[in-house]
């Protein structure tokens, strides 16, 4: 099992969800985050003082999947989130040792979906 973490542009969340649904990945958890990456922030002035904003609004998606879903999930995220512009985001994949469904106590592969 793997835990997939993706940072995407906020306005792409709906597209990513659609793409995941198409690949039959229905479960996920989402948080809002601030990201600092290749994408430069922007300068503004507030009350005449220069402001440099380099933490940009991003959305963090966390998805636990079984092995055979890893590639489809990654593909779906890329499909939904890619615009080709800097700031599109990253996908990180880590090993997931164990998974438990709280409601039933089920463990492992069955608990994921």
């Amino acid at each position: 099992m793997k835990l997939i973490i993706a940072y995407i542009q906020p306005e792409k969340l709906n597209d990513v969800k659609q793409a995941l649904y198409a690949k039959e990945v229905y479960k996920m958890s989402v948080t809002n985050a601030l990201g600092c990456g290749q994408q430069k922030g922007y300068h503004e002035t507030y009350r005449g003082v220069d402001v440099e904003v380099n933490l940009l609004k991003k959305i963090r998606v966390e998805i636990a999947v079984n092995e055979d879903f890893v590639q489809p999930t990654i593909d779906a995220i890329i499909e939904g989130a890619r615009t080709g512009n800097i700031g599109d985001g990253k996908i990180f994949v880590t090993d997931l040792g164990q998974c438990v469904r709280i409601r039933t106590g089920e463990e492992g592969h069955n608990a994921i979906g």
Partner: protein
Amino acid sequence: MLGMFKSKVSLLAAAAILVLPAASVFGADSGAPDSQVGVDTLWVTIAAMLVFFMQAGFGMVEAGFIRAKNSSNILMKNFIDYCTAIVMFFLVGYAIMFGTGNSFLGWSGFGLSGVADIIPNTHVQKYAFWFFQAAFCGAAASIVAGGMAERMKFAAYIIYTVAISAVVYPIVGHWVWNEGGWLAQMGFKDFAGSTVVHITGGWAAFIGTIILGPRIGKYKNGGLPKAIAGHNIPIACLGVFILWFGWFGFNPGSTVAVGDGSAFSRVAMNTNLAAAVGALAAMAVVWIFFGKPDLSMTMNGALAGLVAVTGPCAYIEPWAAIAIGAVAGVLVVIGVSLLDRLHVDDPVGAVAVHGFNGIWGTLAIGVFGQKALGVPLDGLVYGGGWSQLGVQALGMLTVAAFSIVCMGAVFLAIKHTMGLRVSRAEEFRGLDIGQHGMESYAGFQIFANE
């Protein structure tokens, strides 16, 4: 403050008091005693303050009903349209609206120069009368901001504001509220502005919204409308209360006289009843048709009642205010849904509230108006026949058409020169940062995925 009692002003006032009821207290201009002029002017000035305060109400309602990322932008529009309207109405608008000219527009009194101290046919100082009228002009300008919210460029909005406050609104006002105006002479009635303010503003918003196009994401996949929730319902609710409060200056203040109190107090009562019933009716309709009593729609209902009663408020009995409010509450729900279906994306319901109910209020004078209360002919329900209703319909149609044509031309001109709409990227990021370089709620974590 006490220091000022050496000023001429106070000496005059003191003199006036000490010699009452001698001849000198009768103002030279009006033949009315100074105290009468003083009291009428006081009432109009206080009413003008209340109308000014509506600006805060518009701002809060419009900001609360849209997304957080665009709320400073709409507040800036609101703030600046009032400021611009004030300056424009001083320099130009007042002269076009209340100046002497022909039946289409006036042309005297630019910068108030040459305007009589006491406004003819009233006992009100020109300063107070101007202030009251200028605040009205600001209100008319503000209506459009909401309908075109979340995507219109700020600079374009300023151009729009100049056009409506310096030219379009004053011309309509001239037709209806200047004795010499062609609609006034036909016996068309609009006590406090269902036509002049709300039809003008509401239908300008209508055409503007169409020319601007819907917000990104509003109509997805085959055109079904998507709900884009307002970000701060409590301030929107506060805004509605402030508008309602300010409307007590708008309508009752339009008597521009205290008299024996019967006129403005009946207007106040009617205003209050129509708003309350409008809210209840809208709530009932939403509840029945969509399953739950939606606060935002209920608030629109109250505003609809207020808009609709604005025109007839002085010409009707309380029971008629209830009837007018009830229809308005139903109408606004229908209006919002209809416009959504027609893909007219009006985030705050400006067209349904002001446009639709401005029409209803204008027509209602022909239905519920009473000759004894100042309409040339009794309305339908009093057996006065269809004549007054006909005049009202004519006036309403002309003003709506005039507003749509003029403002449509302005919006199209802007669109093809400086551009009316922000870029797609800016619309995503929000107009607060894009247009003004600031956030409305710095630090707050706001989940924005649209």
